[in-house]
């Protein structure tokens, strides 16, 4: 559980620091009035703050999974997997997906909606390709006889990739909604906000994937 505890410590330090920097020491019974009140500001739109909280929660989820991974490794019957080469290809694809989102986001900020549309389409395409690649990796593994039930290392491989994939599928719903806004030609500020959120989430899932893939490579 060390990894989870380190993560929790980081979360607590962040929260504690925020509380301390703001007004946790105010003598609220002595201070009246409304002017110059230290209202603890978080300079983020609500939706983006919501996304960051969500991302932190998912980070917690994956850190628990990694903790469990290391604990289960210690029980002796662990037989490490070969690292299927296709995972390198998939990693490249998910990097491209993230890059395409970044490009779309930058284009939208420069109010170039045509390029934003291309970027968004590419990002979605690469994301779907990544998922297909993961499925292919699964098939290769089962064809080689690495079934989920035959070793905990295999079971963790399927579990980790599946959970990551599910989060990406969830992201694709947000992607579709953003795409809808772009196609309908909504208010640009709304489109930009949606793109911002998706880009952050995509980069996050890329980071999670890199962490998980390194874990698979290292063990």
């Amino acid at each position, binding site marked *: 559980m060390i990894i989870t505890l380190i993560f929790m410590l980081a979360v607590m330090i962040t929260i504690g620091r925020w509380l301390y920097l703001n007004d946790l020491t105010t003598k609220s019974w002595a201070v009246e009035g409304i002017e110059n009140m230290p209202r603890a500001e978080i300079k983020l739109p609500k939706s983006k703050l*919501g996304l960051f909280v969500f991302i932190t929660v998912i980070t917690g989820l994956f850190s628990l999974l990694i903790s469990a991974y290391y604990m289960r490794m210690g029980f002796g019957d662990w037989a490490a997997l070969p690292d299927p080469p296709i995972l390198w290809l998939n990693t490249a694809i998910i990097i491209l997906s993230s890059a395409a989102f970044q490009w779309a986001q930058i284009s939208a900020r420069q109010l170039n909606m045509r390029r934003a549309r291309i970027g968004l389409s590419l990002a979605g395409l690469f994301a779907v390709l990544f998922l297909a690649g993961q499925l292919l990796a699964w098939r290769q593994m089962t064809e080689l006889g690495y079934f989920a039930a035959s070793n905990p290392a295999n079971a963790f491989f399927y579990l980790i990739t599946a959970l990551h994939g599910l989060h990406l599928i969830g992201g694709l719903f947000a992607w579709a909604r953003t795409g809808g806004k772009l196609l309908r030609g909504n208010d640009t500020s709304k489109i930009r906000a949606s793109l911002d959120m998706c880009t952050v989430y995509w980069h996050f899932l890329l980071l999670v994937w890199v962490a998980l893939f390194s874990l698979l490579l290292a063990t």
Partner: protein
Amino acid sequence: MVDIGNTDIDALPVAEVEEADLYHAKSWITKYVFSQDAKVIAIQYSGTAIAIGLVGLVLSWMMRIQLGFPEVFSFISPEAYYQFITMHGMIMVIYLLTALFLGGFGNYLIPLMVGARDMVFPYINMLSYWIYLLAVLILVSTFFIPGGPTGAGWTLYPPQAILEGTPGSDLGIILMLVSLALFIVGFTMGGLNYVVTVLQGRTRGMTMMRLPLTIWGIFTATVLALFAFPALFVGAIMMLLDQVLGTSFFMPAIVSFGEHLEYGGGSPILFQHLFWFFGHPEVYIVALPAFGIVSDLISAHSRRNIFGYRMMVWAIVAIGAISFVVWAHHMYVSGMHPAFGFFFATTTLIIAIPTALKVYNWVLTIWRGNIHFTIPMLFSLGFIVTFLNGGITGLFLGNVVVDVPLSDTMFVVAHFHMVMGVAPLMVVFGAIYHWFPLMSGRMLHVGLGKVHFWITFLGAYSIFLPLHYIGLLGVPRRYFELNVGGTPADFIPASVGQLNAFVTVITLLVGVAQIIFFINLFWSLRYGKKSEKNPWNATSLEWQTPDMPPGHGNWGPELPPVYRWAYAYSVPGFATDFIPQNVAPSTMPGLENIEDG
């Protein structure tokens, strides 16, 4: 710590979307069924939680009947008994208390108390409720499937949870795990709302340190839940795979019914770590909202500011933080390294410090207060006493040497029912009596309320004090039957049977007596005395809405400005004994005389 995405490449500032207009329901269905109004969602959450809680109550009767009058009712087989135990625990802890405090009170009170019109993400809030309802329905459905619900105990420990021989080890446990996973998904959606609304939805002048303690409790509990529930989620998914795909995350090599199973190498202890990493914070997920609410009730009903507000806030935050490093005190008998036992015993005793501080502050708030023995106050006092009792036995059990002999006895059952069952329920009842006028515009009947309080309070003690005693005698928990061939086992005195029968009778009576509460609830809804505005003369914002009950959007054209903290009771030099948070100092004579402290 999550700084991704805030790149500096943009020439334009970050796109800030204007706050979407409040969602207005267009039809009856979107107003009352698929509602996005936090107040309606709160009532849906509460109604569902209380309904499933009543199922949990009936299950406890079944268990008590078996313990009090063994071999009298043939329909309670050993299998059924274990199913009752399991479902009772799971329902009460997760589907009733967690959902009621956070989904129910959280949804109702957060927007009103921080001065917002609604939660920040109303649509996600609505989804949260419907996923919760789905989780509850799946849970209930396990009563009707072949094999019945799981009988693995509420902790669902592997390997027995998924092995043949345990009731419901097939479909029962699968649906249980699916239901839990759904609950967690639904809760996370709600939790995002509660956290972001408290952080970003506060009205002008409402600083964090002016929030009522109710909000601090619910806010901190939500943060805990957001980080604790994923542990249960991971555990549930892994066990699901063990059961369905035959993986061996938690399953060691096992011979079952003479047959060598396919499993091997896994560790049940791994599940225990995941489960209790969730399970202990869960205690505080239930307790912290109760702490917060009871602070506000005590302050309002003894007309005195809460004693040591800052410390109360710090204590809530400290308890929240420490609650993540005490989990293995549930595992002293799992054979873990004694050094770990020492560590977790120490943290367990440390967490008692901020908790005790809160108890002192409640008592000091009442001290020399102008105490009104209203029903909410009675329940609050009941809570303090009960929580203290339950907390003290917690100190016993937190020590390894005391816990080892007491582990798996009725003493543990008595301890956690006092601290986590009776105490939070006292707050739930107190809170309902307190906020019912706000929700309905009518008062609950006082006489019926008093009868309800005294029966519940004295009844709870008649039930759980004897259980402490028989636990000390060594009566084990989870046993279907203490008799061996008709006579009690050697190590159990014969009088235990009589005490058990007494406890069972009281349990049935107290359970039935809750009808008084429901009669009061439904009768008062129609015929109760009309409540004036702000009937308790409370200071916090939820009582200051233009309409009572508050309408859609809570506030009039403008959000209320906040000028002071939520505990301006009995301020010297002022005509009334309370000053609402949103009353400007300039508009009320005498207010300029407020002195510090």
